[in-house]
């Protein structure tokens, strides 16, 4: 009996790494999302059903189940950024990236997403591009940041 309890405990402890594992699968995917294949890999690794893995992956907002562009722009829309002009930034970003929030640009360069408070509120309005934070945004700084990325990928 004792070793069975031990096994169960090991399994439970391992499961606490599932979010880490999904992060690393998503980071390794060139399209920055969790493909069906990724979910299968995860299910196998943790000895879970696909339904369970899907349930976890679909719950958390940092995980995407559809392919994304090279740069994921996550604009904060929570209270401080809202008050400091996030909505104007959103329309500026849409026009610079030539796509709408919730979508990926035709050239697969930009995916636009809204996020809740990113913990960068002293620099509101703020956003993240992949893992980097950009704060104190205004139309000019946005233009510079996004045009630079476009140039790097021209």
């Amino acid at each position, binding site marked *: 009996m004792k070793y069975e309890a031990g096994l169960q*405990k090991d399994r439970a402890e391992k499961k606490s790494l599932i*979010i880490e594992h999904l992060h690393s699968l998503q980071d390794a995917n060139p399209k920055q999302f969790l493909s069906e294949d990724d979910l299968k890999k995860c299910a196998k690794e943790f000895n879970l059903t696909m339904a369970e893995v899907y349930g976890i992956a679909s*719950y958390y907002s940092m995980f995407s189940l559809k392919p994304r562009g090279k740069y994921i722009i996550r604009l904060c829309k929570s*209270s401080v950024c809202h008050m400091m002009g996030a909505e104007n930034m959103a329309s500026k970003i849409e026009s610079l990236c030539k796509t709408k929030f919730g979508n990926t640009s035709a050239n697969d360069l930009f995916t636009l997403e809204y996020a809740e408070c990113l913990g960068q*509120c002293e620099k509101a309005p703020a956003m993240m591009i992949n893992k980097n934070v950009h704060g104190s945004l205004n139309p000019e700084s946005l233009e510079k940041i996004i045009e630079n990325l476009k140039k790097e990928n021209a």
Partner: protein
Amino acid sequence: MIAEKRISLARIEKINADSIDDSLKAGAYNGLKKALTMNPEEMIEKFEKSGLRGRGGAGFPTGLKQKFTRSSCLDCEKYIICNADEGEPGTFKDRVIMERDPHMLIEGMIIAAYVIGASRGFIYIRGEYQRSIEVLQKAIEDSNKNGFLGENVLGSGFNFNLELRLGAGSYLCGEELTLLESLEGKRGYPRIKPPFPAQKGLWESPTLINNVETFSHLPAILNEGLDWYTSLGTEESKGTKIFTITGRVQKPGFYEMEMGCTLRELLFDIAGGMKDGYEFKGALLGGAAGTFVDESFLDIPLAYETLKARGATLGSGAILVLDQETDMPSLLHNLMDFFKHESCGKCVPCRVGTTMLTEMAAKLKNEPELIHKMTKEAHYMAETSLCPLGQSPILPLKSYREYYS
């Protein structure tokens, strides 16, 4: 004139966060060395007497929580968890501690683990905090290498392993019982209380959960002593608190103040006052799950008891300053939309209620009397929702009705 008083942030200007040597020179782990020579029960008594209360928002007495967790079983496995999910809009104090003095947090956690008798700990950190994650990873490694973590901590016979666990974008996972579900690798659905984590937490074992800032007070209490600590703050709010002040102020940012300073002191003496052309109209204290206040609060001490007496909360210490141009109905709509987005949908009152509140808030500008209906709905939610998220919208709504409608 009033000045900052730093405990959690005492070293941030003096050290490079990536260097444990810097931190050691500035006094890191001295509190731990003291702790290892002391009796855990005596130490708990000390933390109880210090008056320290949880800095994650609810303000629960820290020593008491340690006592419950320690006494919940004597020889069984116990765990310790740091809540570093920091998702309350307007709050970024924990990030500052983690990015700039990770050893302050780690030392606090080791002390707490020793006190309750835990041999494993986890820092549950939000996935967006990339820099904090990197700094903490290195700091944990360095702390292990220097014998503060791992087997036989500083030769004391006490073992303690500390690991990071990442979140992935969910405000609700900052709620302690939901955090446990997420840490166990599940969807972030809340658990029913009781049992409390102190009785049955991670993997059904007694678990102590505290906020980053809470842990970071423990070393100083041991180093500087009770008399010093209890001389800071007010009757029921001891020590210091980091406030994060945002909005149209001259110097938005983080400021660690003695508890009981006033909003006027914080805003005008410390944060430089309002930006040119803007007038102070009020504030939102404590984030989305916080309360609106008006000018009449400028001279009320920022402390648990004084704010509570006026129906307001300190919450996480977030202060969003409002000015004459702030579109209040739009801000309220933003808060309702936040709750709607973060509601997990498990129970009907909150799932339906947050949607209804968002819809009504959208019409509030043209139909100001809707605020009464909204408050009623939020009251109903507060009484029937499963977890504290559904019990939160009433806070901003009621105070909005009082001061801004």
